[in-house]
């Protein structure tokens, strides 16, 4: 697989999210919600939010570690805690921001926020990653 810090994962591509910006320890994506992103009640499915929060946190950690380090020793989510504060509907744009809190040699910590439009916080999450051993070859 080709690693590119501006290329979202296949699953984020399936969802339809767009990478917007990344810096040292920070990453942001956005998504215009469609019917396919909903739960049976017509509200954004919680899985859409957790998926993109995980994505931006992993990306934020990667901006600290560097692409080469990630290729050699990927980091993997081992723990996720998310609170869902409000909802969003098809037609809404959600913005997902991730920040690396600490990147150590064996673990990394990050947090993410999801906003509906510019202001309304609809979800917040904390993520823990383990930095795996170097891949052979």
């Amino acid at each position, binding site marked *: *697989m080709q690693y590119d810090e501006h290329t979202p994962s*296949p*699953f984020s591509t399936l969802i339809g999210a767009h990478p917007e910006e990344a810096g040292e320890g920070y990453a942001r994506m956005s998504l215009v919600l469609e019917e396919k992103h909903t739960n049976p009640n017509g509200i954004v499915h919680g899985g859409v939010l*957790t998926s993109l929060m995980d*994505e931006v946190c*992993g*990306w934020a950690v990667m901006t600290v570690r560097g692409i080469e380090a990630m290729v050699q020793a990927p980091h993997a*989510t*081992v723990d996720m805690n998310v609170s869902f504060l409000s909802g969003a509907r098809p037609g809404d744009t959600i913005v997902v921001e991730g920040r690396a809190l600490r990147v150590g040699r064996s673990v990394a910590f990050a947090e993410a926020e999801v906003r509906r439009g510019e202001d309304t916080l609809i979800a917040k999450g904390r993520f823990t990653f383990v930095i795996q051993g170097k891949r052979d070859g």
Partner: protein
Amino acid sequence: MAEQPGAPFTAYIGALLEEKAEGYSRLSLKTDTRHADASGCVHPGVLTSVMDSVIGIGLSRLRGDDAREKHGPHATIGMSTSFYAQATPGDELVFEGRVIRLTDRVAFGEVETRRTADGEMIAKAHLTFAIPVGQGPSPDEGRRA
């Protein structure tokens, strides 16, 4: 016989509803490369998406159609997930969960994700749902599923 889940997003991912009962459901997913993360493993969001639906479906059956229509739908307000092992695209996964307790304000559920081929535990989650006011027994009479 498996059927498409009611949530458009869960169906879009490709998960199938294998079994449902009051407070219980089991879904399955045959993963493929569309479900991958940046390192080529199954994206954690795939797992959390289906696990959320597992409890949502079981809770719907437990509350009943009348209660949901009269008082409104329940909504996930918290999810805590541990990921014990990684799945690889191509793996078939099974997601099984139960509502642990339903009160008139909140409900709690637990769900596990296992790889079908060898039964290895991939992830486990604890979910909290908000119940619209007026539904269910009093807190002291919380029901177990």
